[in-house]
């Protein structure tokens, strides 16, 4: 029994971390436990969470993307700019196409030309950032609109619409990853590219699609963020790429690909969201908060690697 518990704890390190945080808060700050903090947590993680779902698919497929950090703010700006001119739904359509096109550019360079994803998405990030800043001249654009406001701040029984969309994204991603042939192919491609190719999987198409999905998801997340904040700004969500990569890795999805699940990423997002919420709740010094968050990421990654190595040793021992 103890052995099983410890095995569970090792493979779901992030649950243990969340439990530790909860116990700490229950002892020292019982006022933390209320429905409104729970609602706040969900709202806080939802927008980035949507990008995190797509990033999980990409990381399982052995790739990753920095350019989401400029697609997301670009999409908030475009939505704020286009909405009064051509209406809500046409602008949503255009922005999704924009995200998909940038994703396709990334995908083309990575899958067809076999360039390193880090450097490709770094260049597209810079280029899109440049286009975005030239477009808005570094200034935010207001996007006040009754309909989007009602959507962005509304809720059903206390759960925000945006959070519900996030849940739907998580479930759909889980379905795609576990129940469809595309999902199995993503796991195979990330696990061993050459073997997957020899097995007849069109690995290039898979890699290409990973980036297109990421482009769509981050453009969509930008639209939701604009609805919630009623403005577009070049600064909104510029830290999204690092934030979602950390959440994915904290959840236990391996950066080397081929292993992971979207529920793990969901837990990772909850942990990161809780951490920053708790720091705000106990009024910690803002810079210290960032410091501890960074340290926690480093610590968990090291612990996780240590666990994995022990597991591999055990497997080798058998």
């Amino acid at each position: 029994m103890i052995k099983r518990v410890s095995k569970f704890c090792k493979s779901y390190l992030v649950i243990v971390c969340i439990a530790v945080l909860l116990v700490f808060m229950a002892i020292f700050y019982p006022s933390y436990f209320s429905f409104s903090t729970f609602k706040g947590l969900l709202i806080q993680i939802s927008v980035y969470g949507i990008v995190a779902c797509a990033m999980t698919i990409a990381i399982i497929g052995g790739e990753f993307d920095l350019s989401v950090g400029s697609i997301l703010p670009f999409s908030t700006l475009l939505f704020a700019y286009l909405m009064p001119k051509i209406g809500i739904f046409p602008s949503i359509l255009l922005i999704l196409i924009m995200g998909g096109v940038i994703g396709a550019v990334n995908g083309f360079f990575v899958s067809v030309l076999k360039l390193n994803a880090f450097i490709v998405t770094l260049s597209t990030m810079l280029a899109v950032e440049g286009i975005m800043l030239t477009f808005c001249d570094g200034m935010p654009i207001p996007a006040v609109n009754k309909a989007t406001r009602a959507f962005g701040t509304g809720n059903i029984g206390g759960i925000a619409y945006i959070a519900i969309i996030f849940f739907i994204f998580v479930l759909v991603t889980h379905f795609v990853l576990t129940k469809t042939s595309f999902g199995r192919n993503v796991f195979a491609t990330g696990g061993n590219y050459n073997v997957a190719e020899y097995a007849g999987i069109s690995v290039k198409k898979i890699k290409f699609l990973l980036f297109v999905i990421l482009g769509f998801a981050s453009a969509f997340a930008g639209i939701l963020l604009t609805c919630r904040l009623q403005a577009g700004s070049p600064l909104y969500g510029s830290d999204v790429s690092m934030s979602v990569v950390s959440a994915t890795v904290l959840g236990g999805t391996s950066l080397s690909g081929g292993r992971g699940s979207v529920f793990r990423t969901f837990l990772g997002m909850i942990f990161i969201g809780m951490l920053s919420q708790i720091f705000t709740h106990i009024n910690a010094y803002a810079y210290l908060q960032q410091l501890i968050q960074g340290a926690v990421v480093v610590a968990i990654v090291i612990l996780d690697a240590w666990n994995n190595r022990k597991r591999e040793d055990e497997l080798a021992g058998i």
Partner: protein
Amino acid sequence: MNRQNSQAGGKLNYIASKYGMLSILVLIIIVAGIINPAFLTGQNIINIFKQISATGLLAIGMTFVIISGGIDLSVGAMMSICGVISVVLIPRFGVPAAMLLALLSGLVLGIFNGIFVSATGGTMGSSFIITFGMSTVLGSAALCITNGAIAYASKYKSYMVIGQGYWGVIPITVAIFLICIVVGQIILGKTGFGRLVHCIGVNEEATRLSGIRTRVIRISVYAISGLMAAAGGICLCSRVRSASPTQGAGYELDAIAVVLLGGSRMGGGAGSIWKTLMGVVIMGVLTNALNVVGVTAYPQKIVRGVIILAAVLMDLRSAKAENEMLATKV
């Protein structure tokens, strides 16, 4: 006949790609010189070198890390915190000791980076996430030290010698950068340590199995990167007469970009400090040329992104050409 033809073609391709970077550089210089003759004055050329020396110092350390098969995203934050340390310690220890302590903290923090990275397996992915986490830690530590404010150094005349003084016509920062380039090239190209850095970049497991302490090599690579970041931080602070806790943000991407632009390969094994020098000069000349020609900061980012992508594409072609050369030789 056919084979000879393809050999000649391969050779041509090889030469074109080998000197491709140089021709791009010459092209940029000619175009910028025609549009604005002020670009070609001696003063402007010295300015270019002054502007690139901080990024260049970072890029030297980054070359070691990238050749060893890793990446160091923490150098920007490392630069901030070491710059801040070198300024806030002056009242207590005096200028030379404060600078030494800043260099020492860069070295020690770099060693920590190395220990953490090798504890997580030393792969590309782990070095990415670990050094990213460290960059958050170090960046916010710098903010904690100064309480978010900028530490001014204009009171300390001797501190500003490095950033603003000259040896003859050469600014001291530029001299430091060039000395580090030469020393770095000697270490990387002529010593056993340098060869081992290449080895762990190609195949760490094989290197370890042949009896080499790969962990020590990996840790020292990150230590070098930390040290160079500290040096870059001090040069920058001394040039701008103050230490901002966020001054280094974004420098890490520039450093990676120039290393790859020079032609060292992501994933390890191939590269040299000369190549990095080439990358640094191209980036410096390009930025300066865009300024001189009158392109504003925002569109410059677009150009930069496109240039990096183009450089990596050329690198791909040169790798192919090299392989073809080898194949035809056999």
